[in-house]
């Protein structure tokens, strides 16, 4: 029998189907719940500086999430999404990257952005859609983005970032093609990481993006956050195979599954994945397993679709786990930690109050950035709108006062 493609034919004379669950992919776990290293596991090489920064990021995001969840309840912002339970998955993966690697996130990865240096005020300005928001007040809260920090602005339609990540990473690779020989001249300096949920992995964009990356060898790390739910839909109504990881193998790319509540496991896996991607240009798939501890968003009420018992059974705090390890390393002191939390809470509240009173974007921002410069029809619509607002300033208090 001839081989039509790169599939190796392993001839068998018995009628046999391979079971859909035959591929069982193990889960890398390094830290115990008590902050010990599992017998047989090896802690990754992580510096004290990185470990502390990783911890501080998780701690900060937990406090920010708590406060902003509350701020939404008070009606101060319209919407919020926490990353409760997934702090280690997001932060440790970001910590394993180079600052210049591109991050293409879904929406629950604020910790990765903060790790890169997005400031408290920047978070607040986006959530309050004020004129200091880098996104000019156009998107709902939590749709962050920063060119300076190599963090692609979030788009709400799910999965769209996945094939885009493949394309971006391909760009990062071909930068290193030798113009004369057409060969890859050296190792790649930067790669892309793409985060998405196990729900978003059902979108056509996932399959398109991962297959393109495999075929064209794009240095992208696909980071699937499997947190058990897509809004109310449990993972067993989302897919039937062995998680998202088995699909990586199906598409022909290197794959690993990690315990997403284990910062050391996530860090080790991502660090290694990056090494492979920069040296070979290959894509990698990492599936992180954690549980979404909170509601999907502030518009959601999980008591409508999951029980208190179920939630109680999944109460693993990734931050505690890592804190215990840090304390054992003698890199962290409990009393200092408690004190720091108090002052962060105060800073968050102060920043919230600052952002709340900043003016909304000016009327011009309604028509800017639709194109590089407003096309004539848009300019005309703007002039009409301006004239209308001038006639009725009381009806448009946000912008009327500032119209020239």
């Amino acid at each position, binding site marked *: 029998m001839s081989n039509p493609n790169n599939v190796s034919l392993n001839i068998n004379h018995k009628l046999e189907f391979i079971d859909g669950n035959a591929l069982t992919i193990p889960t890398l776990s390094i830290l115990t719940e008590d902050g010990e290293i599992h017998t047989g596991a090896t802690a990754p090489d992580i510096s004290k500086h990185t470990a502390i920064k990783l911890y501080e990021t998780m701690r900060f995001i937990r406090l920010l999430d708590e406060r902003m969840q509350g701020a939404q309840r008070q009606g101060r912002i*319209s*919407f919020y999404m926490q990353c409760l339970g997934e702090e280690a998955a997001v932060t440790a993966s970001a910590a394993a990257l180079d600052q210049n690697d591109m991050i293409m996130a879904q929406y629950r990865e604020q910790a990765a952005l903060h790790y890169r240096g997005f400031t408290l005020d920047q978070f607040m300005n986006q959530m309050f*859609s*004020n004129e200091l928001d880098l996104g*000019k*007040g*156009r*998107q*709902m809260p939590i*749709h962050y983005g920063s060119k300076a920090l190599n963090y692609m602005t979030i*788009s*709400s*339609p*799910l*999965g769209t970032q996945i094939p885009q990540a493949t394309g971006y990473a391909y760009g990062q690779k071909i930068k290193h093609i030798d113009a004369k020989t057409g060969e890859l001249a050296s190792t790649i300096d930067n790669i892309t990481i793409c985060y998405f949920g196990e*729900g*978003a992995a*059902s*979108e*056509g*964009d996932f399959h398109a993006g991962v297959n393109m990356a495999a075929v064209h060898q794009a240095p992208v790390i696909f980071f699937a956050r499997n947190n058990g739910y*897509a*809004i*109310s*839909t449990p993972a067993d*109504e*989302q*897919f039937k195979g062995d998680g998202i990881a088995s699909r990586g193998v199906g598409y022909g790319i290197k794959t690993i599954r990690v315990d997403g509540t284990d910062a050391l496991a996530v860090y080790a896996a991502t660090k290694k994945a990056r090494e492979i991607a920069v040296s070979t240009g290959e894509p990698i798939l990492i599936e992180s397993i954690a549980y979404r501890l909170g509601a999907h968003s502030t*518009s*959601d009420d999980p008591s*409508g*679709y999951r029980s208190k018992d179920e939630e109680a059974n999944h109460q693993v705090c990734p931050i505690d786990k890592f804190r215990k390890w840090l304390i054992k390393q003698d890199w962290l002191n409990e009393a200092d930690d408690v004190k720091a939390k108090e002052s962060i809470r105060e800073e968050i509240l102060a920043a919230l109050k600052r952002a709340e009173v900043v003016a*909304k*974007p000016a*009327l011009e*921002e*309604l*028509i800017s950035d*639709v194109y590089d410069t407003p*096309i004539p*029809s*848009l300019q005309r*619509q*703007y002039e009409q*709108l301006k004239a*209308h*607002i001038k*006639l*009725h300033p009381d*009806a*448009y208090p*946000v*912008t009327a006062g500032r119209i020239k």
Partner: protein
Amino acid sequence: MAKMNMLHAINSALDITMAEHPQACIFGEDVGYFGGVFRATSGLQEKYGKHRVFNTPLTEQGILGFANGLAAFGAPALAEIQFADYIFPAFDQIVNESAKFRYRSGNEFNVGNLTIRTPYGGGIAGGLYHSQSPEAYFAHTPGLKVIVPRNPYQAKGLLRAAIKDDNPVLFFEPKRLYRASIGEVPEEDYTIELGKAEVVQQGTDVTLLAWGAQMEIIEDAAKQASEQGISCEVIDLRSILPWDVEAIAKSVTKTGRLIVSHEAPITNGFGAEIAATIGQECFLHLESPIMRVCGLDTPYPLALEKEYVPDALKVLAAIKQSMDF
């Protein structure tokens, strides 16, 4: 009769359909046990079981492809797309497949049993990806029907008619009104004919035309205009494709003036089609140019939503301009 909000009215229409046809299926993201993020399908899984009311994986392309197949088989396929903003991954299945199934097969096969429900529109601080009104994209596609109800009574009667109609129908539900709009709705079955506009208020000076959530806005403008002695005829188009040219032409022949208002961007919005057709039909009766009060040609914003939307004040300004022309 019972007092219902729009979600209850929709739920009731779905319930009747499920009871009527043993193969009818409701499916989409989160619609199963949870009843959908807006709860339009609440209680239906308990009543009709998991084989007929179920969550799908998160893939709109999959939902509509599946729905086309199921409808081609002959089962009423009641697909929900969680937000109209997320219908675009299914665009190919709807525009190239649902719409052309019957035509390309010489009616060997068709998907007349397909109904697609989806919440559309702004006014909920949703920004550019939770506020769109994409009806015009679909109204450009022969083979589809496109319906938009304005209140609970309309929603139930039009949805039942859409389901019974032997063509694929897109049913856009104004999410801003889901809970806000409450009214008397018969508990029993009834239908409202597709393709017909409704004159909601009689008037003599100017015709105001809209659909869905925008009806509230033009009704408000009509009220303010009447305080200034201007009599508006207010019409709900209800059915975007096919649309009731005759009813609109009749009204404009009487009033001599037409203002169309929709939330979607003005350029190539459905108002453009109406203006062109009525301009031709009523040319000799028009006292002023047909005007459109619509969204700007920009994505739907968040912070400056109030400035962006075609509100009653903007409609009123257009009414006066039309009267003073």
